[in-house]
């Protein structure tokens, strides 16, 4: 079955940048694009063990009459076939239920006001819950469209990082782009990460399919990220720290998202892919 990406379309210049990135993603990886043009500010996503209500800001409902045409015009530029999602089911008669059986979902960067914190595009509670419950990775676009030419996996040695690496290799295989690894060695030495890869059965895959591994052991977390290319797609596992730790020290993923202008693919605990 063909892989499919769900994109929630925002009919604004910022939304156009997001859609361009989704289109680039689909074109590069041969993924089918499914676009949802929101009809109300809320929609629901039912996963196996959780449901998430996504609250969009008002800008998602701007000019609904031109939204489909705008999306189609952009898709034509990339020669990508687009399917527009029409919700079939509604909760409480008014809240559309959006299907969750996609391979990827794009959560575009929303506007940077406070309402974005409860919408898409900000690694806040909503995107966390989507990433934690879904079987698909969440594609988070940068603010401006920039085609990426390589894939960089942030590898931390955790289970989710192994999953992220698998997805990175999968994307590399489908796109034919080089895959690089990036590791900030905060508490462990290089041997530790090698061992983690061996235990996960991924060590043998690296030789053939990973072009470089940037192991950084100096400077701060933020400084280390200068080693990551400006035109690369970042793939990272959803860091599963406890609530208190996140409240005290903040989330690493959010730090990365705030610090890096690149598009990101956030891989949750239930995302599985064959390498």
């Amino acid at each position, binding site marked *: *079955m063909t892989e499919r990406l769900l994109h929630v379309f925002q009919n604004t210049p910022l939304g156009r940048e997001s859609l361009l990135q989704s289109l680039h993603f689909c074109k590069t990886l041969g993924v089918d694009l499914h676009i949802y043009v929101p009809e109300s500010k809320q929609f629901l996503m*039912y996963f*196996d*063990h*959780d*449901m998430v209500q996504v609250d969009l800001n008002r800008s998602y409902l701007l000019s609904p009459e031109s939204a489909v045409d705008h999306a189609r015009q952009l898709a034509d530029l990339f020669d990508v076939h687009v399917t527009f999602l029409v919700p079939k089911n*509604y909760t*409480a*008669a008014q809240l559309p239920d959006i299907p969750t059986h996609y391979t990827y979902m794009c959560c575009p960067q929303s506007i940077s006001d406070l309402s974005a914190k409860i919408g898409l595009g900000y690694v806040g509670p909503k995107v966390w819950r989507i990433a934690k419950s879904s079987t698909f990775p969440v594609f988070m676009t940068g603010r401006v469209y920039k085609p990426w030419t390589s894939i960089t996996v942030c590898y931390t040695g955790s289970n989710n990082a192994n999953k992220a690496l698998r997805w990175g290799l999968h994307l590399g295989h489908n796109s034919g782009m080089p895959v690089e690894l990036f590791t900030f060695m905060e508490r462990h030495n290089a041997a530790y990460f090698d061992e983690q890869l061996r235990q996960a059965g991924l060590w043998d895959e690296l030789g053939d399919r990973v072009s470089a591994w940037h192991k950084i052991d100096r400077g701060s977390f933020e400084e280390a990220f200068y080693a990551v290319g400006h035109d690369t797609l970042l793939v990272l596992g959803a860091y599963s720290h406890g609530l208190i730790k996140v409240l005290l020290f903040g989330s690493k993923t959010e730090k990365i998202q705030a610090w890096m202008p690149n598009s990101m693919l956030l891989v949750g605990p239930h995302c599985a892919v064959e390498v």
Partner: protein
Amino acid sequence: MLKAARRKWAVFRSDDRLIVIAMAGLVGACSGLAAVALNRSLHFMGTALHTFHHHWWGVVLPAVGATLSAIFLNVLLKERAGHGVPEVVYAVSRYGGLLRFRSSYSRLVSSCLTIGSGGSAGPEAPVVISGAALGSNIAKFFSLKERQRITLVGCGAAGAIASIFNAPITGLVFTVEVILGEWRSFNIIPIAIAAVAGTEVSRLLQGNQIVFPRQHYTIGLPDIAASFGVVIVATVVSVVLGRMLKGMHGVAMRTHIPPLVRPAVGGLAVGLLGIYLPFVLGEGYLSVQQMIQGTFSQGLLLAILVMAAKMLATALTLGWGGSGGIFAPSLMIGSLVGLVYHRFLSWIMPTAILSNEGCFALLGMAGLLSGMLQAPLTGIFLVVEITGGYDVILPLIIVSALTSTFCYYIEPASYYLRDLIERGQFLRPGTDARVLSDLAVRELVKEVPTLLRGDMLLREFLTILEQSKEHLFPVVDPHSGAYQGMIFVDRIRPFLFDRQMYGVLMIEQLMESNVPTVAPDDELSEVLSLMEHEDLEALPVVENRRFVGLLSKSTLLDHYRKELIVQAGN
């Protein structure tokens, strides 16, 4: 020691029933607490605002309450309004009982504002969704399975109803009859425990009091005969009330008034009605009590007027977006039905020996509730438990059973389920529609190892056919991968035995290009209908013009059976 404890916990967790039974008490107690909180809040608001209703400006109180309720629900919590029960049934039907956590408190606050300020609605639907959401989220917290979660949703609803009415059997019966729709021991035992827990919480915090004081009635044969008349009146009133609610909602939706202002319009109209007929405001339990005790002093015509006004007020409150349920208004309108009918009988047949009008008020209550919900057992047990009126059980059964049956023939869907049925979203567990809704074309599609080209000669195809067990072959464009048509071996049999055709005929000449195709997102019920209509054993699945695979009836049946076993919990 820790290992031993873990092993015990693992055994406990692995037993589906044990863990649900253990959780049921917790869920029942929590939902019972929610119901008590709403009950006390309504009592407080009723007492605090009572004097204000006597002022001329008291007319705006229901409007203010309804507006605040809408703001709370739609702006602060971003949760769409509704009375809640259909949402719970929908969640159970389609999504394994998944409910938002915010639903566990949102309707409590909003219905408190609506009803406490004078809106004509009841607190049961809000407590049902609160209890159900608590059950759902507790199940989610403990990572329980879907079937266990559905049972805990039922436990929450049962605990809430049991607590708000101090009626455990009603909680159990309502949940099984209306919310879950299946009588199975897997459900009934935990739900019964939850109902007991909810009732106990209520009794602990509010005392063991039934909603309406018990009266003694002597039922004779004339009363049983007269109860058939109650059936007819209750049926008519149930149908009219149901249509009024739906019609009023339609009117509200067609207006250009902003959604946040709509409840205020309904509330204002109720406030205006309340100036002349204060009976229509709030739950109306005081009037019901008077009718049961036989102390409702208004005459026949005024009683009819109050009944019509209460129906209108309920339609205005709920139809225009107020938050609340239909139980309490049904009880009041039903008791008026019984009272009016009794007075009318006494007027035209003064010598008839009938029980007092309180008895008929009970019959009317049961009739209207059974008619509106099309749930006769709920009607019977609710009236018996909240009034202690076991004396009237025989006519009560007649009225409830017949009213719900007649209402079913006039309106095949109950008030709670009408919208879901109209949208095709009412799927009871174990039914054909539900099983099919849980399966997806993409799960059942089978990849086909051999794809044919249109320019392939029949001779080449025969070589493939010799080594294949298939009898259906898709034809695709080798360059674009686009689907072109199907080859049915059965239908081209004459050509297969004609050697002269082997080097002449090409596959594109033999293929059928008008075979209907399905998409991976299509509903299986529609796909199955298509198969039956076209008399086909399999259909090609096509996405973006590309062939994906075949969906066959045998694969569908195989998965259907497996899904049915899962849903039946065997």
